[in-house]
């Protein structure tokens, strides 16, 4: 029997706020263990939480970007369970009245626009981290770092809308782009800024009923999400095909060994005893605040992509590359002014990005050297034939290496175009003398060798020759000779 998988994701996004969710401790990553703690995030007796407005605003911006309904009144709740790295032995989160509900994330997969619907987005606090590094005599010792305890997290829960693991990977890639776009999170899965659990079940293809689901935790890279879910689909399929049953369980994915291990079965499921957090008032979002947040949502990547296709006539692929990063899109929009958009896109996606990648530079590092105005100037000179393509590429290398403006570089003699016959004719003649083979082939009717000969003249000119002029001179000389 053929089976199909039904997959829903729960994504945790660590917000990039200055302070923690319920206290004034820095939310930064990488401080010495337990340096960023206070009575509140250590859960000391008597301490009380106060909600971080910046974190709420980040959530609102994400929710509004995704078209969620924002509750005018949402409720913080306590989720009760004992865990050593959770200082209060309850987590402040949101339960039945989350801040955002509904909404969807548009994702392009294999050139097809899809939208994946969401159930909710809510705010909660992160836990600390336990380490089990050493032994004391024959006893194991655990250490706990509470720096991360209380750092603001968003939890986003999708509808069970995914059928194939690559869809999940594409969703996460798009989500990562969006949170960076909105500047609410660094979105780095390896650093735990973006974490993902998956609920997976399978059912006979075509069936409308849902099978028993398993929850997979510890999917901490986009590749891991894809592989972990695939492994679970294989496991469940094998179970059903051998006449077995899927048991509701929570599994841990071990990426190093590509294996799943049962963390707890249904009998050991927690009763979290949620109830409204009495230490925090209702979270009220008045219309004015919501509209203020909506105004802060920039043009979104999918809208920008569509605009690039429509307004500039770019290929969807190129528009996609340019909208990977909001700053890159902005750079392009400065470069493109007054130019042929396709040429400008090519200069940014191929020439600029290629050089950045080769040097390992960020866009900020790149644009500190090659400003958008400078690149615009360079491309404009190519378009007005004041500069040849090869020469312009050399000039771009010089601009990047030296951090000097296009105008300064292009004033140098080696970047002057040589277009006069008296200047180029000696080079043309020399090439004809040096390459008798291609010359005779051309003369015997195999005119494709002309391109090779043009290239040789260009090379001799140090790229300064205008290719069209060289071509005409060559044709004349080859016929005449």
């Amino acid at each position: 029997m053929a089976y199909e998988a039904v997959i829903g994701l729960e994504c945790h996004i660590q917000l990039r706020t200055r302070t923690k969710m319920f206290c004034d401790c820095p939310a930064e990553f990488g401080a010495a263990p337990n340096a960023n703690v206070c009575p509140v995030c250590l859960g000391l007796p008597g301490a009380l939480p106060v909600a971080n407005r910046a974190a709420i605003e980040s959530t609102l911006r994400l929710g509004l970007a995704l078209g969620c309904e924002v509750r005018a009144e949402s409720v913080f709740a306590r989720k009760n369970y004992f865990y050593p790295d959770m200082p209060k032995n309850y987590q402040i989160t949101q339960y039945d009245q989350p801040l955002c509900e509904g909404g969807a994330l548009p994702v392009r997969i294999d050139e097809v626009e899809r939208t994946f619907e969401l159930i909710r987005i809510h705010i909660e606090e992160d836990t600390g981290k336990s380490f089990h590094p050493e032994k004391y005599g024959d006893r194991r010792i655990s250490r706990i770092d509470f720096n991360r305890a209380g750092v603001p997290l968003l939890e986003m829960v999708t509808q069970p809308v995914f059928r194939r693991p690559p869809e999940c990977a594409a969703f996460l890639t798009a989500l990562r782009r969006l949170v960076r776009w909105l500047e609410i999170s660094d979105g780095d899965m390896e650093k735990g800024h973006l974490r993902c659990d998956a609920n997976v079940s399978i059912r006979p293809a075509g069936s409308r009923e849902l099978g028993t689901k398993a929850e997979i935790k510890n999917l901490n890279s986009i590749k891991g999400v894809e592989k972990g879910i695939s492994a679970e689909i294989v496991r469940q399929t094998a179970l059903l095909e051998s006449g077995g049953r899927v048991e509701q369980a929570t599994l841990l994915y071990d990426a190093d060994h590509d294996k799943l291990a049962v963390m707890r079965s249904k009998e050991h499921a927690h009763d979290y005893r949620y109830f409204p957090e009495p230490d925090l008032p209702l979270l009220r979002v008045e219309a004015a605040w919501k509209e203020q947040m909506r105004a802060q949502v920039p043009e979104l990547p999918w809208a920008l992509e569509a605009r690039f296709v429509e307004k500039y006539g770019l290929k969807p692929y190129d528009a996609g590359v340019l909208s990977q990063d909001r700053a890159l899109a902005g750079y392009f929009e400065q470069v493109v002014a007054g130019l042929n958009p396709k040429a400008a896109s090519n200069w940014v996606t191929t020439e600029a990005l290629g050089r950045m990648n080769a040097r390992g530079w960020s866009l900020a590092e790149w644009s500190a050297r090659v400003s958008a105005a400078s690149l615009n100037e360079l491309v404009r000179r190519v378009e007005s034939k004041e500069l040849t393509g090869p020469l312009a590429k050399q000039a771009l290398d010089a601009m990047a290496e030296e951090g000097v403006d296009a105008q300064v570089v292009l004033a140098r003699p080696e970047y002057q175009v040589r277009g006069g016959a008296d200047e180029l004719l000696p080079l043309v003649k020399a090439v004809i003398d040096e390459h008798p083979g291609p010359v005779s082939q051309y003369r015997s009717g195999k005119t494709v060798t002309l391109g090779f000969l043009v290239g040789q003249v260009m090379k001799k000119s140090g790229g300064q020759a205008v290719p069209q002029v060289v071509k005409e001179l060559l044709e004349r000389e080859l016929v005449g000779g």
Partner: protein
Amino acid sequence: MSELWKLSAIELAHGVRTGKVTVAAAVESGFEGPAREWESEVHALLASDPKARASGAAAANDGPLRGVPVVVKDNLCTTDYPTTCGSRILEGYRPPYDATVVRRLRAAGAVVSGKGNMDEFAMGSSTEYSAFGPTRNPHDLGRVPGGSSGGPAAAVAYGLVPVALGSDTGGSVRQPAAFCGVLGLKPTYGRLSRYGLVAFGSSLDQVGILARHVSDVATTYAALAGPDPFDATMRLTPAPDVSHWDEGVKGLRFGWPANLWAASVDRELVEGLEESAAYLERAGATKVPFEFMPGEFGVATYYLVATAEASSNLARFDGVRYGFRHPDSDDVRTLYTRSRSAGFGPEVQRRILLGTYALSAGYYDAYYLSAQKARTRIRREYEEAFRRCDLVLMPATPTLPFRLGEKTEDPLAMYLSDIFTIGANLAGIPGLTVPVGLSRSRLPRAVQLLGPEDAEPALLRAARAIEVRGETKHLPSEYEAEFSWPTKR
């Protein structure tokens, strides 16, 4: 000045500020006189230390409470004393910060002179559930001082300090104040910061003030009340002005719900109510008789809400980060269970179990959710009552102080001693118990005044009228009414 310990807080502060008394002498006054006579038998304090008092005195700020010694209940965080909540699980625990109310006390010039005994985690009505031994009632050492703020109430009653801070979740300031014959104010929810008050039932807890004179309650309230950025449940408006506590009750309408005490209230307490009503009327207030049955389901509602919140609030006491850790534990599960089983007393364990049950899947709707609905109804009943009057005069407790051991074996009987006080916590409104002399058996009698939110000024004016027995003439505001001191027996 001799017998400094008999002075009110504002008299003492006045003496200090005019140079007649040193801060050190003011702080030590209660320890030199009455404590020698009483403390070993009463056991009002869990901690006090001459060195800490001396350094507190040396560092005292100028302010309306300059040099005034204050006993603070042991569930309020203090950097200079351990904060145990009367529990083994926090034995020796010293907080790294002061509660906001403690900080404000110090800012006003007061000196924390000791930590008051209490029922463990404020769960009890007699102070018998303290892990460190009970407090006894100074008026009769065979009787309880009430609870859970029994230590602070007894300390004020026998003269150790003129003012103490307690906490009131279901009557834990007002009931011991009544049993010890002192004033006990539970302010409007959200008026005194809870930051640094170790939580019992977060939506009910409020820091309260115990004192022998209305003037001192008002002065202390004024020093402590008002918004605190560390407590998100506080009211954001400025606290009401209580400086007119001596301006009388002319025109004030007080509700008289006689049906409340028709059946099961001690006869002598009813006489206290009648006398108080007569004082209020003599001072120009109007009695408004009406039927009032606030919260038929009050006790049940209270014990569901308070225990549910407590079960979560007390989860942090697990032996991992601070407090008592059982020495014998091989893994984290046994560390939790052994530390908590040995660290918490039986009443605390009982309430954690009750609260856990009330929040459990399948029971939440029947218990916690129903209790929330009942709570809303109770709040409306009070709102309704305050459309007819400015405040309500009613009993603080159904009985005079009971004997030690009388109710410890019967939790329900113990819970019912809070029947008249829990309503104010459920409704978030202020309540004040006011002593009205002694019974024929020389035990303190008291009445309770309840008002709508932010009615503290009216409650204090009414209490003052009762304090001066309805006299409105020839009584300058510095006049301090005679206080019924305990005699030892």
